């Protein structure tokens, strides 16, 4: 949890694998990197066993690059596809038992605040739609109601992709899947609405077909979760296996879904706007100068 933990032990440098040496010498730790520099530095995410063309992996890769302080970040996940990639990264990953990831993150976040005081240590929960909206629903909602200060990211592929294609709470009404042959009979859950009611300070929906937007959303969420309150991001990350999307059409599907039901939306409380403007210089949230008084 500091810049010291990615270092060579003295005398062992020449024995370390190339990937590790690249990470120490050309990784993003202690530097500011952005999406526009991708391809020219060693990324936190390593090789992973996710399927070819997986949009969830793309979103995870973009998120890892967007963390404001990767050396001070811990990710929390649970069962599901996402953890196969999130765990293959050079930042600590905590595997919550199915459903309790937001409970684990609550304790972790509080503990880090006790231990490190004002020095920000970011906790980011990244789990799938099943792990969050179905099995981890109670822990998730309760962490929001308790105003626990960490970021929750839902990787919404609208299906249980890892177990053969069962419907989840986030599956759309009428969707026919391998293990839901009659089609889903209920509406998709409105997690965004629930996040707002539960008191999240920042709520956003994104689709990974706009890398720069993903970057700004993740940065804002993690910064707000440091001091203001819980942040929630819901990302559409299609499952090209269960929804039979050809791998080269994954971004075309993302674009269509963005136009259909996943428009970019962002909700920020006034406290969070003021915090971002004053602490981190976000110009768009600075108070507007009072309009000039016009003579009647």
């Amino acid at each position, binding site marked *: 949890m500091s810049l010291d933990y990615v270092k060579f032990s003295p005398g062992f440098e020449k024995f370390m694998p190339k990937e590790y040496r690249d990470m120490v010498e050309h990784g993003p730790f202690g530097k500011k990197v952005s999406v*526009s520099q991708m*391809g*020219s530095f060693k990324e936190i995410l390593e*090789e992973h066993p996710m*399927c070819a*063309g997986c949009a969830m992996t*793309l979103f995870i*890769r973009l998120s890892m690059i967007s963390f404001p302080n990767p050396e001070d970040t811990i990710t929390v996940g649970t069962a599901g596809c996402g953890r196969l990639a999130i765990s293959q990264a050079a930042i600590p990953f905590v595997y919550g038992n199915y459903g309790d990831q937001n409970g684990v993150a609550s304790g972790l976040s509080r503990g880090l605040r006790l231990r490190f005081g004002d020095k920000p240590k970011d906790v980011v929960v990244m789990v799938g739609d099943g792990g969050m909206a179905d099995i981890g629903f109670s822990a998730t909602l309760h962490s929001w109601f308790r105003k626990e200060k960490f970021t929750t990211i839902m990787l919404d592929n609208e299906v249980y992709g890892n177990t053969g294609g069962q419907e989840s709470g986030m599956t759309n009404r009428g969707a026919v899947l391998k293990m839901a042959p009659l089609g889903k009979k209920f509406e998709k859950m409105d997690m965004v609405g629930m996040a707002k009611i539960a008191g999240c300070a920042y709520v956003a929906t994104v689709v990974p077909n706009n890398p720069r937007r993903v970057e700004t959303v993740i940065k804002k969420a993690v910064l707000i979760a440091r001091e203001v309150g819980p942040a929630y991001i819901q990302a559409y990350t299609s499952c090209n296996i269960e929804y039979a999307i050809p791998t080269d059409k994954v*971004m075309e599907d993302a674009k269509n879904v963005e136009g259909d039901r996943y428009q970019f939306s962002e909700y920020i409380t006034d406290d969070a706007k003021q915090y971002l403007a004053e602490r981190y210089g976000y110009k768009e949230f600075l108070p507007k100068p009072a309009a000039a008084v016009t003579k009647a």
Partner: protein
Amino acid sequence: MYLVADINVDICAQTSCKLCTQFCPEANTILYNDQAGKEKGYKYGAAYVAVDRCKGCAQCVWVCDNMAKHHAITMIMIDQLPKAAITDNVTYGEKSTTALLASPVVG
């Protein structure tokens, strides 16, 4: 044999969009060399693929054809590539990377 992405340096080096890198789901697979194509007078450098990490999804092909409209990337059988970059031969610099090209097929 299997397909991997191959980037045409002559087309790529005339632009600096880097979109393929930003849309690849694999980390450190499409990398950027800002010296590529300089000997032919191109300004920007070009992207290249570390073929040992490419899973052949062709998302970069769709992005290059439809978003960037450069048509610089094609899918090719790996044994048809005479020389390619692999992760072990990639060297990271300050703002760019370079790769020694070698035959990607062992034996």
